């Protein structure tokens, strides 16, 4: 099962080798999320309109390894943008991926950019 998690590594913007054109901005709900398929990866992408920012992370929750993070709820914990997993309400920082209410492994985080009303996610090889 570990192989699912090993596919996902936090990627810094400086390490990006491929910007993947995922979908149109309009395909994402405001203050909501959706799941993007890139090769054999599932990436959760969030349009955090209240903060005017976009975030991306692995779609698989490290707690029970289900592909559900994109269906979670956005929020903030004392200013830190976070996502709550719909399964057991584990919350993770969208900036660092760290689990904020327990000691589950961190989520891998990916950079997002918006160009010409399209959402791009950054990957490194």
């Amino acid at each position: 099962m570990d192989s699912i998690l090993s596919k996902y590594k936090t990627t810094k913007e400086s390490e990006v080798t491929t910007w993947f054109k995922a979908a149109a901005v309009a395909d994402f709900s405001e203050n909501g999320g959706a799941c993007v398929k890139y090769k054999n990866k599932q990436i959760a992408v969030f349009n955090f309109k209240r903060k005017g920012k976009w975030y991306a992370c692995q779609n698989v929750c490290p707690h029970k390894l289900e592909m559900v993070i994109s269906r979670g709820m956005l929020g903030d914990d004392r200013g830190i943008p976070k996502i709550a997993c719909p399964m057991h309400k584990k919350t993770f920082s969208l900036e660092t991926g760290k689990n904020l209410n327990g000691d589950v492994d961190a989520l891998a985080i990916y950079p997002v950019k918006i160009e010409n009303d399209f959402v791009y996610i950054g990957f490194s090889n």
Partner: protein
Amino acid sequence: MKTIIVVGNGMVGYKFCQRFVEKEESKNYKLLVFGEEPRPAYDRVHLSEFFKNSDAKALEMAPRSWYKEHNIELITNERVTDIHRSKKTISTINERDYSYDYLVLATGSSPFVPPIKGVEKKGIFVYRTIEDLEGMLAYADKIKAKNPNAKAAVLGGGLLGLEAGKAVMDMGLEPHIVEFAPKLMPRQLDIRSSSVLQMTLEAMGLNIHLSKITSQILGDDCITGMEFGEDDELAVDMLVISAGIRPRDELGKTCNLEMGVRGGIVVNNKMQTSDPNIFAIGEVALYNQMIYGLVAPGYEMANVAVEQILKNTEVLMSAEIDMSTKLKLIGVDVASFGEPFMPTSKGHSILFEDKTKGLYKRINVSHDSKTLLGGILVGDASDYNILHQILLNNMTLPNNVEELVIGPREGGGGSPFGSAMDLPDSAQICSCESVTKGQVCNAIEDETCVSFSDIASLTKATTGCGGCKPMVVELVNQTLKSLGKEVKDIICEHFEYSRQELYGILKIKKITSYNEALDSCGKGDGCEICKPLVASIFASLYNDTANKEDVIQDSNDKFLANIQRNGTYSVVPRIPGGEITPEKLIVIGEVGKKYNLYTKITGGQRIDLFGAKLNELPAIWKELIDAGFESGHAYGKSLRTVKSCVGSTWCRYGMDESVSFAIELENRYKGLRSPHKLKGGVSGCIRECAEARGKDFGVIAVEGGWNLYVCGNGGATPKHALLLAEQIDNETCIKYLDRFLMYYIRTAAPLMRTAAWLDKLDGGIEQLKKVVIDDVLDINAELEKEMQFLVDAYKCEWKEAIENEESKKRFSHFVNSDDEDDNIVFVRMREQVIPASWE
């Protein structure tokens, strides 16, 4: 490095280890612990909880890893058989020898089994270890299989005996308590309080036999009964002996330590035995000519032994041991403190007794009414903590001492006790962990702690028996208040209001979107607590369905389905009252077959289809809706089902048409969002086949109309619904229900079921009657109007979801592909699919 060997790994033996490793100096010692039982020390005080869940781990004082982390070598399942004092070694049953510098005997006690003829027969148990309990459970299953009405007796009506009585009752056996003395709990209660307790326990189904001397146990191989004397027998299939304890002092005897005449190893106030290198603590130690069978003195002994071994010689055992106890026996409060039975030469007693309510209060005061000497409380022990503190701190009593028993007179103002804040700083609030009032309040004042949970983890107060919790909570809250810090029940960091307050604000300001709510009366960007709460309030105010603002809905509401273990969903169409035509049954069957769903009948008389992938939901619901089904709202904090029995339509006992009424009620309240889920039931007669009294609202047909019950539930803490109105017609029943439900929706805390809400409502069911029936708050016209608005505004949200292309979009797994999630794995069980198991 010196070696300390602890013999015995019970609660007191564990406490010795815990206190020892907390000390800096403990690093210079090696600690070796022997336990004769197979598992590490567990909480014997709460042993009966094992029957609820058979979870031995939950009772553990600390897991095995704790011992390891603290460099304690724990050897279980190995009994120490000999002490060689001259060589300073011990031997174990496996013939292994270990040497010690200090030896601590914490061997505890064993149950006393009186020498009654036939006591060796099968089906006779003692009540002390988890293994005893496992034996009892296995035997109970065996005898119940032969005879569903099997009986079990407990020999001994003391504290532990009554606990055992409850345990056999929970096993489904008819419980009997047999006591030799003329009263229950002879060490703690007087005759009057015993008879009050007896009446209460008998009303709960416990049979009590006092003044019975058991002369022999009947039966051939297995027990079949007990004989008390001539022509006096009780037929029983099982017996639990709880007739007191005997110290496990055999090790002391074999190595010639000084022993008490009737057993126990003699110790001084340093917990030293007659050999200065050997200490004895807990139920094996004879201190002041007494064996103390309570946890608190045992813990104090453990502490004294730790300090003495580490040469802090000024720490000595108290000269007088407080034997006060407070406990809940089968839900009945019982407390006994100080001198519960006081001779008239020492003072007066003030008594209050109300057998109709099962209440008894006795306090003993000095002749000049200035000093409290002791007392007994049965039925309501809420004053125990403060009375106990007055006693321990020798505080002067108020002028009208009788108010301590009967409560303050009209206009007298305030509680006669004052508050816990009036106690001196030295007052010991938690006797298990020896925590004083000063320690609690100071930690809050110097900001080491800011909440009750901080205090509990810092001082360990309330973590033993838990009896002091109300007092510690009061001290924490009062101290916070005195520092000007507000103690308030707020929703979360984004809204500093209670749910009821926010409900009022959103309604008055006519706020209709989450962002507007956050901007006008909250802060930050919201979270998984406040978003669904605000969504629920919008649903109650405007009957907004979950489609309107899907991003603030709980996940289940967002996708209008319950997320399951592997990230797939379940589908539950509404089947009002559980009535369904064969044609519709076939549709459900066809849909289940087509999408390969696991199907199961639910407790609410409908059918649950599991294993639907997110992207399949709209197609599945389209087929169901086309066949005339609607959403069952099984995913929401909303009305689930109104269960019914078949009623007078078919049943020869039926008094009214329960199915028709259940369908009417379910259709009226379907889609109604509420602070928690809502369930209803309608039964056609008092046989109550619909189990309506286990629901948030239940209606039962009687001669001349319906009886309406409210605020019951099943689940983790089952509660029977209470009678709100009798012999009412359909129309009145609906009127009262409209008012009741709307009042609950307006005022309950988030995720609070109706039963918990009623518990919190000042005045309880009587107050609810005044509101719903007599309209004392003058709000009923408004409540009815609001409910009628919600009923009229109902829409099937699944129909709404699939008719709108935009709202259907959220059901695809990927935003950039029509592929399904290939991570989902099913396996088969009994010819259906289930999720592959979690690692």
